[in-house]
């Protein structure tokens, strides 16, 4: 009877130890999950700020176009031609020459083009840079989500000790790796 009871007690203790271990694993998982949730919020903030930045850019361009900046280009050209007319008429012999005219026309063209680009330029590059940044942030978010899912699963099955440990270790490692790359 004694050996039998001893064996029974041993099995019971082993089972109890397993339960205690699982509780620790579960608590650790919940703690880590809370950290991951905080990080997710940070990534969400970054995503929101990127989208806000792009929206502001788009709004600025739209606002410029609403204000009919073409008139601004007309005004710019008129001011340049008035200035050149003054220069030529002040000293016709020296200034009313081929070189002056060609220089005036080419400079006006280039400056108007710069102004046009500034006011009507495409936002294709800005748009794509934003998308690239968003894609990278989305990948970070997905990674955190995966870690969080693993940790949630740990909360479901605290008695499956070995599996729990494997998932927790893996989640911790993945999370550490994320933090390491994020701090670079």
């Amino acid at each position, binding site marked *: 009877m004694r050996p039998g009871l001893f064996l*029974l007690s041993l099995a019971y203790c082993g089972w109890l130890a397993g339960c205690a271990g699982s509780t620790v694993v579960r608590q650790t998982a919940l703690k880590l999950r809370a950290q991951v949730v905080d990080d997710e919020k940070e990534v969400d903030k970054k995503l929101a700020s990127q989208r806000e930045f792009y929206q502001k850019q788009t709004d600025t361009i739209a606002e410029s176009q609403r204000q009919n900046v073409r008139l601004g280009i007309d005004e710019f050209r008129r001011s340049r031609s008035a200035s050149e007319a003054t220069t030529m008429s002040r000293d016709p012999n020296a200034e009313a020459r081929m070189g002056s*005219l060609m220089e005036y026309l080419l400079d006006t*063209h280039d400056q108007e083009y710069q102004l046009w680009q500034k006011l009507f330029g495409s936002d294709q590059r800005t748009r794509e840079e934003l998308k690239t940044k968003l894609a990278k942030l989305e990948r970070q978010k*997905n*990674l955190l989500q995966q870690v969080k899912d693993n940790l*949630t699963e740990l909360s479901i099955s605290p008695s499956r000790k070995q599996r729990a440990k494997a998932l927790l270790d893996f989640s911790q490692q993945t999370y550490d790796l994320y933090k390491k790359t994020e701090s670079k």
Partner: protein
Amino acid sequence: MNRLTTALFLCAACMALSLAAFGQIRLYDSNGDDLAKKTRSTFDDFSKGDNNVFETMVANTLAMKEATLAQLYDLNRQKVHAKVNLIPETTWTALRQRVLDSQQEFVSAYADAQLILGLSTPSDAANALKQEEAKLAVLKNKKSSQEKAVQSEAAKLKDMQDSLQKVRDGVAGAAKPIHKLSDLDTEFKNLKTVWDGVEGAKTWLEAAEKSTQAPGLQLTILDLAVQRQQIKVERLQLELDHIAAQQEIADRIAGRLALVWGNGEPDARGEIRQGEFGKIYAYLEICTPGTACAHHFLTAADNLAEQVMQTIGRLSTTANAEVGRPLDSTLALRNLLDILGRYVSVIGYQRYLLGVDTIESVTDDQIFAIRQSALNAKERSVLISHGLEGLAAYYSGGIKPEEIANLMRAAQTAAQAVVAGKVN
């Protein structure tokens, strides 16, 4: 003896139960390993290259576009220089013909752009503007209906995400272990109510409800449904972005055509008397002083035979004496320079920008095709990471729910590759 036997039997039963439990949780049994290896190998194939490959492709496309535009700009500048060189010695009559030629060149440039874009080429300026406006109207309608589709699917996604998050939070915060998600009475009922109202979500819900002994698997199935909906929204959003980009370019082209030639209708001489061309032509004909056209520089018939530089010299000289007197010649000279500047802008950067818009449109098509591929790859990644193959095998009876953990673990290996591929 009997009591000893009973005790030994109880002990053996305990150990057997423990072994059974351990048997269930074992991550690396042989069958599971084979499946995990297969999945891992698929993931290896997928993640062999750079994880940022699509972003690199987009960056390369943009770099190529900018290099092309730089070349185009240089080429255009050379042409502008060549034409500007001729202006001083050109007579006003000849210049008027050159403006007419430039007008036709602008139509040809637009037609070439349409050809590159695979669209029908217009016969004249009026048709070009009509064609562009019609394209713009179609795109506006398309964008409007696409916006509605995105909003509708995004709302469904949010409902699904929120209800699943409540279940997850419920699981994480539960005081006792959860054996099936329906143990969380309130949260799961809420999820069912929400998902029943979403088209396509019910199937996933039913699949999850079948796996009553594996709450982790239930969550995986529900999450897969959310991910699929997420990708559906992203795909619709991407299409919307593409339409918006097309609309923006079409809007710019239509605006440019209207700016350059108004409605594009020519007069009996074939001259378009609206827009920038109209303003140029208005000053290239005789206008006697005292009429509505103030401060013209071509006021007599013989002025038309003057070279541009000759007229400038004449006006500069008379303007020199206009200190403290009405500024007739000064303003005429200013108008002359203004008109020449306008002409150079039409043959120069306005025409160049028409080419820019076309290249940008083609670039956009390429970029959105890359983004589409990235989304396809992402969808594939989601499917594999959720062990869809495993789920299929599970439903055919060939795999235990626990073995799907192996597939999930393989998916996590891919997650590491994402991190290693410089996520930030």
